[in-house]
């Protein structure tokens, strides 16, 4: 069963349309929702949690339609971390724990205390004095302390230093060791997603450009650097996108369509996404 399923979901705001988005997150997997700022990642997360009303489509979370009363119970299974939405700034970590104890039925104070210790979060310092990294770590500690089966994390790693990011990504990896546990992780830091995700969904200007297994993406696409004349000799359906420079042309291509022996560059998820997002000269 899928942890999250979106089918033809749309949402219109003035000047923005999330257009017919469909993807699913299988249980036990981590799906990275990637896209530039304003691509619709946060809107998608709000729609998944039924925090805003959708204009079309269906959304099921842990098998439950998220508009039904039963979704209220499903929320117990979801740990949530949002970008720039925190706990009131006069609270400290202990008070946040007390509030959450009254919020989630399966709240485990022992687990919470362990996470506070593990992530080096001060217990008595008020939230207002926390750095962004600290705030995120506390939000993650809360999200992990009520025995969730699904984590939904909106830009949970952005703005953090590499050490903290690595620490948090390790926590996410540990979480998905249980095959019932899944994570939807939205970010515009593709390198983070590349480290931990099994699937990548790429949103661009409100449209879902792709949703595929990360490894398949890296198998399917490649970057080549060549001359314009050499590029012109390739079959048209090989080339996805190109970028001309002073020393030749860089192109995102379908690896399987390349002539045998043609050399490719080291290709990362980030370069693939960048080519797909920018479109290049030919998209």
């Amino acid at each position, binding site marked *: 069963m899928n942890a999250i399923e979106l089918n033809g979901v749309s949402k219109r705001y003035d000047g923005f349309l999330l257009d017919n988005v469909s993807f699913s997150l299988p249980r036990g997997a981590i799906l990275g929702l990637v896209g530039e700022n304003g691509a619709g990642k946060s809107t998608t997360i*709000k729609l998944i*949690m039924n*925090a*805003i*009303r959708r204009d079309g489509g269906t959304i099921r979370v842990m098998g439950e339609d998220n508009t039904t009363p039963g979704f*209220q*119970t499903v*929320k*117990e299974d*979801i740990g*949530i971390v*949002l970008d*720039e*939405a*925190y*706990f*009131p*700034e*006069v*609270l400290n970590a202990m*008070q946040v724990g*007390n*509030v*959450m*104890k*009254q*919020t*989630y*039925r399966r709240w485990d104070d022992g687990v919470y205390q362990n996470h506070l210790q593990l992530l080096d979060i001060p217990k008595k310092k008020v*939230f207002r004095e926390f750095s962004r990294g600290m705030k995120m770590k506390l939000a993650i500690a809360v999200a992990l302390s009520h025995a969730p089966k699904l984590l*939904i994390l909106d830009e949970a790693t952005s703005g953090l230093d590499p050490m903290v990011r690595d620490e948090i990504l390790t926590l996410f990896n540990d979480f998905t060791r249980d095959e019932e546990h899944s994570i939807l992780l939205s970010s515009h830091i593709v390198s983070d997603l590349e480290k931990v995700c099994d699937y990548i969904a790429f949103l661009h200007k409100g449209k879902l450009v792709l949703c595929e297994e990360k490894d398949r993406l890296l198998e399917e696409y490649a970057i080549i650097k060549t001359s314009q004349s050499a590029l012109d000799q390739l079959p048209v359906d090989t080339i996805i996108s190109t970028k001309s420079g002073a020393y030749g042309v860089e192109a995102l291509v379908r690896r399987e369509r390349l002539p045998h022996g043609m050399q490719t560059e080291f290709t990362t998820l980030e370069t693939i996404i960048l080519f797909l997002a920018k479109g290049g000269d030919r998209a």
Partner: protein
Amino acid sequence: MRGLLLKDYYTLLKQLKLYLVFIVILSAIPSMNMTSIGVVYAAMLPITAIAFDERCKWDQIAVMMPYKRSDLVFSKFLIGYFGVVVTSIISIGIQAVIGAFKGQGLTTEQILVVVLTAFAGLTLLAINLPFMFWLGVERGRIVFMVLIAGTVFLGMMTAESAKQVLANSTITPVILLLIGALSAAVVNVVSILISNRVYQKKST
């Protein structure tokens, strides 16, 4: 709901300490206006709680937790009710203590004034909160100020004639209390319904 109330309690903890001192001092001054100020202050507690929530965008994350939207709305009304009830109890208690020192008991009029002021406070709260949910704290506060100014103006204009009407009428204190309680209850029920609707629409 308990989580939301606990969160607001922690948020308002500093204000609550000041508020208690404020109420005790005001209640010790034998004047109806002083109790009214205390009740108005109590009616402002939910506004302060909403302001803290807005600053950290708490609502965005709270609607994704196992809370109903109606819980988020009703918890703010509960804080206001708590404030008004506590203010009234302290006010009556302190007036009783002062009376005891003077060798006088509490008069029916003293109790009536405090209870009616509490009903007025609950009504003020009920009128104000939908605006807070609709406009947010910054603009909602302006509405609150206008409401207070309007109430004070109306009170000053009608106080004397109201006293005369009451003096010449057959309305007993019990009937007056019942009318006050019923009005406050009706206004609050309507206000909660409107606030829920406003909140639902706002978050879509």
